[in-house]
Each structure stands twice: as C-alpha cells, then as structure tokens.
C-alpha cells in the first residue's frame, strides 16, 4: 500500500518537475511547481510525518508559490514565452553540471542504499513530538532561526518603506 502510494507520488513528482523545466510559459511552470511541492507533501505523509507534510502544503504551496505567481502575473512576462536560443557557454556548462549532479546523487544513493529507516518512535510525526524536540534538544538553533526570520522581516519592511528618490 505504502509502496504504491510512493510510486504514484514519485511519478507525479518527476512528471511535474519535467513540466517545470520544459514549459516555456512561466505561469504554467509555476503551477507545475506548486503541484510538485504538494506531491512532496504527499511523500512526507507516506513517511508518517503528517505535520511536516501539511506544513509543506501551507508554507510552500499555499504561501510562497502564490507569491511567486503573484509576481509573475504583475510583471506580465510575455517575452519569456518566446524561445531564447541558448548560448555556447550554456551549451557547454549544462551537460557538465548535469553530470556533476548525477555523480553527487549517485554517490549518496550508493552510500545509503543498504541502510534502512530507524525504528519509528511513539508519537512520531505529530505536532507534539516535533514541538518537544524543537523546544528541548534543538532550542538554540530554533531560537537562532527565529531571530534570522525577524531580521529578514525587518529588512523587507525597511526596503519597502524607503522612498524612491
């Protein structure tokens, strides 16, 4: 059952990722990316991490992608729909990057392939267990990240408030 769900989700994930890359229309690509992010949320659910899965939907699909779509629509990118011929630089660099990426991913799969998942602990994936971990074991990193977010927010507000002179 879980295996079937995994393969269906993985198929959706790869298919939507291919659409993101190949589609020239920025809005279609953004919609496909949203689809991709929801599929990843589905994968989290299969791994019993329901809380993370729903946060993935709320934060990425529900907020960040909507903002990206918003900006694309405001800019009204008509030029991007037309084909842009790739330069020589891009032509040479693209296969090299792809090869490098394949090596990294292949190495990671090779190293972790025989290992299995650790035993599921009681209450795994619930908001309560995640909260307990965040506020005890990972307290300082958690606070550091929240500080970082506040700084980013203040920066954004300052940038938006600055008068265009």
């Amino acid at each position, binding site marked *: 059952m879980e295996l079937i769900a995994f393969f269906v989700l993985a198929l959706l994930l790869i298919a939507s990722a291919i659409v993101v890359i190949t589609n020239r229309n920025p809005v279609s690509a953004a919609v496909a990316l949203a689809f991709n992010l929801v599929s990843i949320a589905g994968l989290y659910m299969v791994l019993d991490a329901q809380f993370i899965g729903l946060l993935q939907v709320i934060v990425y699909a*529900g907020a960040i992608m909507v903002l990206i779509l918003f900006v694309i629509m405001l800019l009204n990118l008509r030029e991007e729909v037309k084909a842009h011929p790739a330069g020589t630089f891009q032509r040479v660099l693209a296969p090299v990057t792809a090869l490098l990426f394949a090596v990294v991913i292949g190495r990671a799969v090779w190293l972790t392939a025989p290992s299995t998942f650790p035993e599921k602990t009681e209450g795994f994936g619930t*908001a309560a267990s995640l909260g307990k971990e965040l506020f005890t074991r990972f307290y300082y990193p958690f606070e550091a990240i929240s500080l970082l977010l506040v700084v980013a927010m203040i920066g954004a507000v300052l940038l938006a408030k600055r008068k265009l002179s």
Partner: protein
Amino acid sequence: MIVDIAIIAAKAFLVVFMVLNLAGVLGWVERKGSALIQDRIGANRASIFGFAGLGLVNTLIADPLKFLTKEDFIPPAGDKFLHTLAPCMALFPALVTFAVIPFGDVLTWGDRVINLQVANLNIGILYVFAMGSLGVYGIVIGAWASNNKFSLLGGVRGSAQMISYEVAMGLSVIGILMVYGTLELQEIARGQGTLIGEFLPESWRFSKAAIGWLPAWGIFLQPLAFLLFFTAAVAETKRVPFDLPEGESEIVAGYHVEYSGGKFLMFFAGEFAEIVTAAALMTTLFLGGWQLGLPARWLPEPGWLLWGAQIAAFVLKMAFFQFLFVWVRWTLPRFRYDQLMNLGWKGLLPLSLANLAVTAILVVYGVVGH
C-alpha cells in the same frame, strides 16, 4: 471488513453530497435573504405550477439547467488548459476540507464504533488551513488564463487579500488550540462539553455565579478570537464587504469575468461550499461543535436520541452561521482596497497577536485550558 469500508465510503459520500447540496440551497437562501433585508419579495419566479418548494425547484432544476445549457466560452487568446483547470482548483479545496470536521460524537452500532468524522487526523486544523491555502490557486490561475485585464486585476487582488487574511485567521485560531490543548477537531469539540463553572478556580465565587452556567464553548472563552476569525473567514470566502476580487463596479466581475456556463457554476458553487465549510469550522471551533451545551446530568443516555440531537444541534448551528454570512453580505457596503489591507495587517493581525499573548498568560496561570 467490507462493512467498515462501506461505512467510510458512506460517510465520505454523505459529506460531499451534503456540502454540495447545502451550497446549492445557499444560493437560493442568499436571494431570499437579500429580498428579506431589502424589504421586497424575491426569488419567487422558479416554480412548478405555483410550487416553489423552499428553493428546491431553483436549486435542483432551474439553476443547473440554466448554467449547464449556456455556451462554455474559452477566450481564444487565453490558456485553454489552465482556463479549464482553474474552476476545478477553486471547487476542490472547498469540498475536501469538510472531511476533518466532526458532525457528531462517536456512536456505537452493534459492536462497531463509528466516529462521525470522515478523517480523524491528529492535526485536523492544519489540514483545514492547508486546503484553505490552496483555494487561492483557482482564482489566480483562472484570472491569468482568461487573458483579460479586469480578470487579471481581480486575480492579483484576490491573491493578496487571501494571503493577508490567512495570517490573521491562523493566528486567531492558535488561542483556541491553546485553550483546548489539541489540534484535533473532534477533541476540540469534545473539550467544549463542560460548563465554564466546572473549571474556574474555587475562589472565583463571583465569576462562577456570573458566567459559570455558560457552556465552555470557544465563543465564550475566546470572544476576540471569534470576531477575528469570523472577519477573516468572510474575507477568505471573498464576500461583501471583502469582495474586491470581484468588485463589479470597478473590474466588471473580476477573476471570473471570462467564465460562463458550467465553469462559472463551479466558481459559484465553490464560493458557497466555502461558506458551508467555514460555517462548519466556526461551529466546531467556537460554538461547541455537536455539543448541546447542557450540563452532562441533563443529557439522555448515549443512544440514538442523544446522537440524533447532537447532529441536529450541529446542523442548526451551521445553518445559523450560514445565515450570518448572508446577513453580513446584504448589510455592509464594500471596502476600499487600502482599507482592506489596513484592516488585515494593522487591525486584525496586532489584535490576534494580543489575544495570543493574553491567552498564553491565562493558560500558564491555569485559569483556562486543559
């Protein structure tokens, strides 16, 4: 095994069936409500030999026939695929959100225990917000795919509005989650089964006498959160006074200006399904869900009588909220866009944060909460 699957399938079917039908009837209630509020006779044309049947003729025959027989027009310069996808994406979240809302207590039938809730997720409320946050795609994509200035403006307005009010909505609910100590909607409904007097400290004699007889519903424990949540819910369903994305006096019909026939019906039904879901959610969070609001000793023994009364109580409370939506719609004028943004970010957001801080203090000192 087969019976268990049948029960789950029946619950799922019942919920989708009920949401869609309530959405249809609500379309008629809205017209009747407008007539009532504007002191005229309204929505009395659709009848069979003079029989109007409480809007059933309207919702079952006249509306679908009219919508489904109209030409389905797709703008030639628009995106055909996305133009068709958008109404589906607008309707889908509104239909699936109801899955986590409990419409009754756990009932026992023979040796089977049936939870009157389609999906008992331990993070039910987050599921509601996840689906709610996907609702904006229908508007944005539909607006863009129509290739029309007015619909694009409507879509841009809609996405900014929904993201802004989602923040206040989420923050106002956290107070409720703190008081009842759970993310599970069935548990929240169960937590509202006591009276306020039962958990106030013994020394608070006066408060106990004054408000102790009230049921421990969210609206009494978190009144500010209720106001904030209701306001945000009206904004999320894009209804007057927050119907800027449609704003027909400025941008014709906003994001669905290029939609006709069945696809327009899907947007239309999606809006009403959202109202049904929002009403059910507010009932669960703030009005005790399926609780009757009576002290436990007055209730009959668990049995079909009690379960039936609880389901009836849930439906009645939901109907009240649905009427409240219609009432607000025909009473208030539309906001200006800057007023909308100011209310969301400078009004609702600070208030919900303040509510959160006060609730946190009260929970820590054990005045409310479990």
